[in-house]
């Protein structure tokens, strides 16, 4: 499997990274090298192997169903949440117009 410049452009757009033609030209052979190298995984017969989903067996814990169970990750910290926003208005994150 080898990726061409157009494929890289498509992946870049899926990844929301703008790339110039020159960058795409440079990236295509680099990705091909890496992908060609990982192809060796295809040699291994994994037909009866389960994919790993968790490295340490752990059961999912549920948080108590209460408001602000943890003061750090609960609510009421609007100012802190917005403190690093490049743009904020009326207590919301500011973004360019989405709907015409």
């Amino acid at each position, binding site marked *: 499997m080898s990726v061409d410049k157009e494929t890289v452009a498509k992946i870049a*757009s899926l990844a*929301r*990274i703008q790339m110039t033609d020159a960058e795409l030209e440079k990236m295509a052979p680099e990705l091909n090298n890496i992908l060609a190298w990982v192809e060796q*995984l295809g040699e*291994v017969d*994994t037909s009866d*192997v389960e994919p790993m989903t968790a490295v340490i067996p*752990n059961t999912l814990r549920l948080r108590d169903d209460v408001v602000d169970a943890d003061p750090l990750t609960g609510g009421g910290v609007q100012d802190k949440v917005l403190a690093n926003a490049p743009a904020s208005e009326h207590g919301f994150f500011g*973004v360019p117009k989405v709907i015409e």
Partner: protein
Amino acid sequence: MTNLTELGVAQIRDGVAAGDFTAREVAEAFNANVAAAEALNTFIVTTPEKALEAADAVDAARAKGETLGAMAGVPIGMKDLFATEGVQTTAASHILEGFTPHYESTVSANLWRAGAGMLGKLNLDQFAMGSSNETSYFGEVKSPWRKEGSNTALTPGGSSGGSASAVAARLCPAATGTDTGGSIRQPAAITGTTGIKPTYGRCSRWGVVAFASSLDQAGPMTRSVTDCAIMLEAMAGFDPKDATSLDLPVPEWEKGLNPDLSGKKVGIPREYRMDGTPQDILDSWERGKEWLRDAGAEIVDVSLPHTTYALPAYYIIAPAEASSNLARYDGVRYGLRDLPDGAGLQDMYAATREEGFGDEVKRRILIGTYVLSAGFYDAYYNQAQKIRTLVARDFEQAWADCDLILAPTTPNAAFGLGEMQADPLAMYLNDVFAVPASLAGLPAMSVPGGLNSDGLPLGLQLVGKQFDEQSVLNAGLAIEQRNGFTAKPENWWA
């Protein structure tokens, strides 16, 4: 007068508690070393006032006769991957430049609670992606080490290269690191320092900038095994804010230290003896076996048959998780925003991410996006997750024959900065011995294994069973005591 910056964690903690010197004196001595070492580029931000503030609190607590914490009076470097309240946290990226968290990571909070102070935020590979510290937006970190008779700048390794360099150069007695595929062990090995990655889940990932969540694990980097045990104990612990945090008590690793390995079997994985491994790496491995045998251990041959597939599987799984984790950097909630004239939301995302991410980060996001995309998910990602199961099973089967595994940490000593940049794949191979333990979530440590013919440090790696950090630390201590590693870099930077 003792040279305070030569002391380690245990010596500083005990000396402060005994009144041999004050925590403030210690903090001042390390602050001075940090200020004089700009040439190494180890720190992105220095916080001398934070170190003094914590030291004064410890001195005041001691004066009042209060019980002191496990790290009381010890100033440390904090890898700039940990969110620190009120202090810039960037992951060495442009996209997070100027980001000042309003919260503290659980690991750093644990350390401050134990009485540690912060000297500053340490440089690293951007988003912890790299093995040489050349991908940092804030410039490369230089190793304090140089080849004998050479002035060539060498890599301190990565991604915790700032941490390794700072500890080796006596800018701090200890530093935090994080390890996704070897990012604590590889830099520790090539700077002659000691670092341990605990069992996955021991240290909370809450407030640590995420790279590959199923692999990322924090750990200490110090100059001795005892110091690693003390600091890991202070960092670790159950955290309800991290769903993958282990709900287990933290063992008393420092108290449990015991270099007598009688009755222990140490496995030597035959697949780690790869073609082209330099002779001095093999020699150091031989010395390691001798030291462990001398400590009472029995050396046995073991097989980890899927070793060669671990690295390519890692370079599917880690980028896949990274592509998803790094989707949060879009110019909306924090960090950089690039909004070209008349641009809509999608254009803003794409422009921000183009400007904010470095080349290696983009490369990994693209690989991750590709292997997760429709049509390729089964061939790449699912197959890699199956290989991961096989790598973990290899270790499970090896534990039938041994209690621990000894291997080299890296396939080579430190290389020159810039030497490997042209070939991403050659760089990835640096983690060939470190990655398998990461995929299996096992505790693994690097301790100094001597010097090569150029006078550069080499590391020995110990891998243990899940939750068995104690055996790893004990074997590390046995090596440390027999190795008597006292080499240190000559100070050319101050």
